[in-house]
């Protein structure tokens, strides 16, 4: 059973619907105990980093996520869920969970044809193999919607990159945690493959 962490972040039902379609058992839960005891966790999100951290703290989901991470539960972060596993976000100058060292930065371009947010389909380039990405092929495109991007301190954490004005980390990972800046639940068949890959992953990954 996958626990989808409910902290009032926008795309929770979309993730649930995608898992239902794939016949992968899941449950949306705001309960820290369920998160700590989960077999597997998806940490989704759309919204503002500061608002997200506030709800996480109110529900004690911040410590629950840290505990689950430390005990080796496979965790998938999505979008804001990816940004706030880093130490800090420029969005609202917010201190975040710090499961992976690094910060989340805002896009800033001199070229006005590069619009912010980065909305739409973009291809990723895989830098390192990972069990969850095993069925993703070069050139596969995913759906992105974001104005901030993850910037881990250690480049070893970067599994895949994407180009939009700059080259930024599209997938990051550390031990039993993997996180995507894009939305697999809105990325058509390739996104569903990634979710399936996560549902089969035992959480082990040698960096």
């Amino acid at each position, binding site marked *: 059973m996958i626990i989808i962490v409910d902290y009032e972040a926008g*795309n929770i039902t979309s993730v649930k619907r995608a898992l239902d379609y794939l016949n992968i058992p899941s449950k949306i839960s705001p309960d820290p105990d369920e998160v700590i005891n989960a077999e597997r966790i998806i940490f989704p999100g759309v919204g503002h980093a500061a608002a997200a951290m506030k709800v996480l703290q109110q529900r004690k989901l911040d410590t629950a996520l840290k505990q689950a991470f430390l005990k080796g539960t496979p965790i998938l972060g999505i979008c804001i869920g990816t940004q706030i596993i880093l130490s800090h976000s420029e969005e609202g100058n917010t201190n975040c969970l710090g499961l992976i060292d690094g910060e989340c930065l805002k896009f800033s371009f001199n070229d006005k044809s590069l619009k912010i*947010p980065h909305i739409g389909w973009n291809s990723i380039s895989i830098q390192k193999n990972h069990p969850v990405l095993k069925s993703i092929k070069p050139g596969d495109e995913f*759906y992105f919607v974001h104005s901030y991007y993850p910037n881990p301190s250690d480049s070893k954490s970067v599994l895949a990159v994407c180009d*939009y004005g700059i080259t930024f980390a599209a997938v990051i990972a550390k031990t039993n945690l993997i996180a995507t800046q894009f939305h697999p639940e809105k990325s058509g068949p390739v996104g569903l493959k990634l979710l399936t890959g996560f549902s089969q992953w035992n959480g082990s990954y040698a960096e």
Partner: protein
Amino acid sequence: MLSKRIISCLDVRNGKLAKSVKFVNTKDIGDPVVTAQKYYEYGIDELVFYDITASSDNRNIMIDVVSEVASKIFIPFSVGGGLRTVEDCTKVRLAGAEKINVNTAAVNNPDLITAASQTLGAQAVVLSMDVLSVPVSSQIPSGYQIVTHGGRTQTGIDAIEWAKKGEKLGAGELVVNSIDADGTKNGYEINLTRMIADAVSIPVIASGGGGKPQHLYEVLTEGHADAALIASMLHYGEYTVKQIKDYLKQRGIKIRST
């Protein structure tokens, strides 16, 4: 590099698919969920559903359609038509739509854009604008006027000004629909699309007039559009999503392969 998006527009009336031509003489041509699923499998990048149901009694049928679409297709889609309040928008969002689409209600009450943007996030708010070309005047310096009620009501608002205002109020994307071109299949209004795309820094989706793959090429290059909306060229089986995408790819447009 970001791909240009090909978005299919599905007009839904009483839960059935319809395609309007110049906003009159609509006729039902199928089931929106079946059609949406087919386009999804063929590689459409995004979908837009406009609820053109006349009676508000039947609005809940649309919520059922949205919910069914959301459980079967896994690409972004937006829903518009008859959304007048933040509550209306939230209902559609909770039913599974990635984005909401406001048009006339936003002209009548621009605060709706801000309120929806604050509640759902700017990325979830699409401002759709129906535009009619008019003689250049001091009131309409661009020669493009915002109209409502499917083109029947002139608002006296300049389209370029409205686009900029929409962005400022919190819209995350704009759909620029040319009433002059809509249903003609003679091509998008390139000049209008480019003027708006150059005036704002949010994505612009061109709408109205797409009849051939070449039209999409024109609006995605000369028209500076980030995405193009298509309807009848797909609905009547004249082209497949793949044919359109192949045409654009061959001409160097970055398009998502499926």
